[in-house]
């Protein structure tokens, strides 16, 4: 991005509003307008989606050489491809000759990408392979310099492939940081790890991407209201999605800017999110500490968000009352399309060692609960659409409307910091607190107010 575009995307009004937000956040206040604002959307593209680590794919989606899928980061379309050399690359889908897209379709397995315009072709490693009439018309073309442009940084953590458009970003492990302690519980249960089942669910929400990210940071408070129907009907145990405030609940805040909400069984109860014994027998949990193992064993549900827009839910639910609980992991990404529209991508995962029958049932239950048709998620879309609607008009701005994120601040709730918690982050002994969501906004605010970087012209 050039300097003109960069400064144009952040108006003085926006800079001032962002500057004020530090104080407001400290009081648990978040201005409503940030959930639907055109200038802010552009600024987020630059300062968040252009600079942070963004989840692109799970490595089990492209197991073989030549396998590719196409995914975008906001408006930028990338090919995520495993080359013949086995390496995964994230390549900008734009021919270096005139810029046309070189990728036909959104998934497949190819040796080369051929540009339809003038026929330049690129190997599945991104290198420029052939140029029609090159011998006479591009005699001194340096092919090495004209390959598909890769995302500056691509790193993999336990099968999760992330890219960053900023080559000076800190390593991915530093970005995830101490949150690994919690993430590993989900990804490193069995020796084979987690496997993506099928293609991700995709749908559009009429909402701002931050609604998904902040909710999955740990909005334990909404289930008893918005999702009352699923508990009433017996599609979820009260333990998984009933009223918050149980004695075994935890909120983990300020863990490298990431957060998670956890519901547990009593000490000593082996539950593992509801995985049946023939799946959990594979949970060797190699490399996990005793505290992590204890937490995994007692786990009922975890939700969490890795800043900025990758969320997870690990839970056991039913697709019909009376059926046995079936556990699964869902990874979901909130990709901004506009200030008030978001494309959700949601992957269902199960332990690799689980039987095909189990995986099919876990997929079915995941679809019936967390997807565009999910009995839970259908209702989230309603609440979040209202947030974006009320944020988009003049009233929120002219009135300076603030949203209340104060639950769990001193004197507001009984939630207390657990001094003897073994894991990282600041742990609360209750999920009746909103520090998990303040964590998201604190990190967001830091990212949005970082000193301007030098941009390549």
């Amino acid at each position, binding site marked *: 991005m050039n300097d003109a575009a960069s400064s144009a995307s952040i108006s003085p009004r926006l800079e001032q509003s962002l500057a004020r937000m530090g104080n407001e956040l400290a009081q648990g206040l978040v201005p409503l307008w940030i959930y639907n604002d055109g200038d802010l959307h552009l600024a987020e593209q630059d300062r968040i989606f252009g600079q942070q680590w963004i989840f692109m794919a799970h490595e089990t989606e492209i197991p073989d050489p030549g396998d590719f899928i196409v995914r975008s980061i906001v408006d930028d379309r990338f090919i995520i491809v495993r080359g013949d050399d086995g390496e995964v690359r994230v390549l900008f889908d734009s021919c270096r000759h005139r810029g046309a897209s070189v990728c036909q379709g959104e998934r497949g397995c190819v040796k080369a990408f051929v540009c339809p315009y003038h026929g330049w072709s690129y190997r599945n490693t991104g290198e420029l392979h052939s140029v029609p009439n090159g011998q006479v018309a591009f005699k001194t073309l340096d092919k090495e310099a004209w390959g598909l442009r890769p995302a500056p940084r691509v790193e993999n953590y336990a099968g999760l492939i992330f890219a960053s458009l900023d080559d000076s970003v800190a390593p991915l492990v530093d970005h995830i940081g101490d949150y690994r302690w919690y993430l590993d519980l989900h990804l490193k249960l069995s020796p084979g790890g987690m496997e993506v089942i099928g293609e991700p669910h995709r749908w559009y929400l*009429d909402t701002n991407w931050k609604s998904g990210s902040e909710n999955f940071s740990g909005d334990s408070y909404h289930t008893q209201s918005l999702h009352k129907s699923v508990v009433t009907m017996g599609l979820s145990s009260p333990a998984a999605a009933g009223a918050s405030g149980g004695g075994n609940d935890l909120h983990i805040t300020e863990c490298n800017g990431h957060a998670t909400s956890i519901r547990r069984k009593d000490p000593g109860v082996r539950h593992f999110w509801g995985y049946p014994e023939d799946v959990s027998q594979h949970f060797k949990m190699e490399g996990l500490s005793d505290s992590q193992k204890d937490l995994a064993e007692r786990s009922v549900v975890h939700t969490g968000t890795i800043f900025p827009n990758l969320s997870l839910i690990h839970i056991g639910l039913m697709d019909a009352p009376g059926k046995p609980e079936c556990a699964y992991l869902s990874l979901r990404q909130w990709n901004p399309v506009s200030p008030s529209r978001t494309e959700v991508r949601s992957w269902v995962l199960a332990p690799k060692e689980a039987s095909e029958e189990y995986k099919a049932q876990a997929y079915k239950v995941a679809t019936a609960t967390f997807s565009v048709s999910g009995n839970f998620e259908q209702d989230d879309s309603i609440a979040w659409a209202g947030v974006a609607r009320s944020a988009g008009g003049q009233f929120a701005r002219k009135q300076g409307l603030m949203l209340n994120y104060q639950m769990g601040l001193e004197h507001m709730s009984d939630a207390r910091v657990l001094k003897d918690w073994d894991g990282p982050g600041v742990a609360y002994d209750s999920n009746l607190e909103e520090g998990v969501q303040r964590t998201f906004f604190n990190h967001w605010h830091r990212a949005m107010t970082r000193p301007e970087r030098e941009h390549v012209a």
Partner: protein
Amino acid sequence: MNEILARPQTVRPYDLPLQADIDLARHAERFLYHEAHLLDGYKLLDWMELITPDIDYRMPIRNIIDNMDIDAAFSDRAFHMVEDYESLAARMVRFQSGLAWSEKPPSRVRRHVSNIRVDPPNGDDLQVQSYLLFHWGRDEMSEILSAERRDVLRMIDGRLYLARRLVLLDHVSIPIPNLSVVL
């Protein structure tokens, strides 16, 4: 390629269906109109009486792939809905519970069914294909979904029941925020 571009010497006949097949097709058509009427009118439990206990209902995820075999675009592992009798019943009961926020107020839905084709019958099962234009509205939003449906209608004691449905959407990413419906 060249042969197909040349004018044929003779016309290839289109076989006219037998009268008995036309009658069956009429029954299938009436069945589809009737179920659309029930669903559009939120007579969801009445609709449940039209399906067999072993119903298999699927809405596969569609991919954008470079392949002229159009069916290859539909996933055999991933679905926006993959349902049996119990899970469909659970959805219907939830929608009618008064607790499902996605149906408070009920979505403004209308199913336009067309292009109905019925294969010659095979025992008690009728293979019926239809096109569906589905209007969905909520608040200020109004959207259209488009799909083909491949159904198996089963004749039991002189009445038709829905035994299988495959909903083949024309959408890759669902353009509406929730699918709190059956198509």
